[in-house]
């Protein structure tokens, strides 16, 4: 059993003239939660389809070192005449025939569907279908779970349950989790891959991504008015690479955090302004995502 569950090398997928994936290489460690993020049309669903064996790459090669792979599409659908329990029951019997049927009720309970287990799914809302899809996916103890926007249609409580379930799966299953909700990715994923225009723009840990981004370290200075004077004073400092703002807030950037920490307070002390606070500008995944996908 290798260290990586997924090893994809130079995967290219064309639909006629459209290049959906352009030389994507991806490595997903066993037992990790891997976040796949990217703007609409970046190729996330296509990449998940390739990894699930549902789509054949035009070029490149990949190996999936897992015997049980489960996929949750972004909008799961089932035969409307089936009952919720039957959907999960069928899933269990297809993947792990002869398993203890108590697993069905257990997973329905975890996804909040036990009370509607004997209702036909034709009347289910999109959120309920997404929960059911997740229940059908996890009931077979998948070694690799591919989740395409699993929380997109859920209310905050449902989203929390999904994130908790994904967290619970960590270590037992490997999860590849595509999402537009960067907070979710930030919360549950160990590593991320940013897809943009069919290419992997970044692959690695979140910490490395935020730390290693090309944006210069910045600080936010809050003052009691006179922000314009602060901007004017900082503009003439040779260590400042960028300064903006005015009024009560000024943002200043420099080549390194150490330079700002050493020089900024010294510079502020030279001008007669009331300083409320000086703090580093925290970079969110969203900032970095927008920067990488720009």
């Amino acid at each position, binding site marked *: 059993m290798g260290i990586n569950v997924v090893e994809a090398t130079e995967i290219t997928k064309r639909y006629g003239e459209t290049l959906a994936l352009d030389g994507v290489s991806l490595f997903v460690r066993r037992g990790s939660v891997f976040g796949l993020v990217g703007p609409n049309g970046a190729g996330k669903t296509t990449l998940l389809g390739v990894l699930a064996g549902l789509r054949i790459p035009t070029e490149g090669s990949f190996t999936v070192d897992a015997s049980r792979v489960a996929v949750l599409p972004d909008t799961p659908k*089932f035969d409307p005449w089936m009952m919720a329990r039957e959907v999960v029951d069928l899933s269990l019997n*297809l993947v792990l025939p002869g398993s203890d049927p108590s697993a069905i009720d257990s997973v329905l309970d975890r996804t909040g569907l036990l009370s509607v287990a004997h209702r036909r799914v034709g009347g289910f809302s999109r959120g309920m279908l997404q929960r059911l899809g997740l229940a059908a996916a996890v009931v077979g103890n998948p070694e690799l779970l591919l989740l395409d926007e699993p929380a997109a249609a859920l209310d905050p409580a449902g989203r929390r349950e999904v994130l908790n379930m994904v967290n619970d799966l960590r270590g037992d299953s490997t999860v590849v989790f595509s999402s537009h909700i960067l907070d979710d990715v930030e919360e549950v994923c160990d590593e991320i891959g940013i897809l943009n225009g069919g290419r992997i723009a970044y692959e690695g840990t979140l910490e490395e991504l935020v730390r290693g981004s090309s944006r210069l370290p910045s600080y936010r200075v809050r003052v009691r008015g006179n922000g314009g004077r602060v901007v004017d004073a900082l503009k003439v400092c040779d260590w400042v690479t960028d300064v903006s703002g005015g009024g009560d807030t000024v943002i200043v950037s420099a080549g390194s955090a150490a330079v700002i920490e050493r020089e900024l307070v010294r510079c502020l002390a030279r001008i007669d302004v009331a300083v409320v606070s000086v703090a580093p500008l925290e970079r969110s995944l969203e900032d970095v995502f927008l920067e990488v996908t720009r």
Partner: protein
Amino acid sequence: MSLWRLEILRLVRTYRLWILLAVFTSFGVLGPLTARFLPEIVAAVGGGVEISVPPPSPELAMAGYLGNALQIGILAVAFVAAAALAFDAQSEMAVYLRTRATIHRILTPRYAVNMIAAIASFVIGTAVAYVGTALLIDAPRLGGTLVASMLLAVYLAFVVALTGLAASFVRSVPGAALMSVGALIVFGIIGLIPQVDQWLPSNLVGSFDTLIAGGEFAYWRSLLSTIILSMGSIAASFVLMGRRET
């Protein structure tokens, strides 16, 4: 829950089994009734115009049943089979199955259950037509009815197989059903060539009238070709659907 039970539930809960039974059974009732009372019906609606109709006979009753039952029945069988076999019509549903089972495992119960349902409905309709004819007119030839029914059962299985093959070319339920029915019509047109007809599945449709009327069995070629074409269609659909992306 197994894939076999899934297909049985699909037929029962979507009322498709009852639709098949209703089509064949209703014509099984109407065929003998129409044949028995045709002279009276014609006299009643003729408005004084004298129209000659053949006297009621078991052959006429069974032919009347079959003519109507096959026209509507084949259409019903094609649509019911397409609803199960064109499972790629909704890709999200297809993902659920395709990531959990092989294409052989998915399709085998769909073919088998739909073939059995189509044949069972036809056999029940034929039995109703036979009993009705025996009660109202006279008993048709039992041997001829049984042999002809078996040939048409093979033909209905072929319709299901052809629909499965069509479903591997198009992703829509009506598209697969209509493509299948279109192919059957093409077979019928090609069958206008006498030398070719004896090798075509459409030749089996004509066996009913002939065998019930006491005609000789001359359907080995079309029976063989129908079985081969059915098996070939199923095998081709396994390959084509197995290669299809979702």
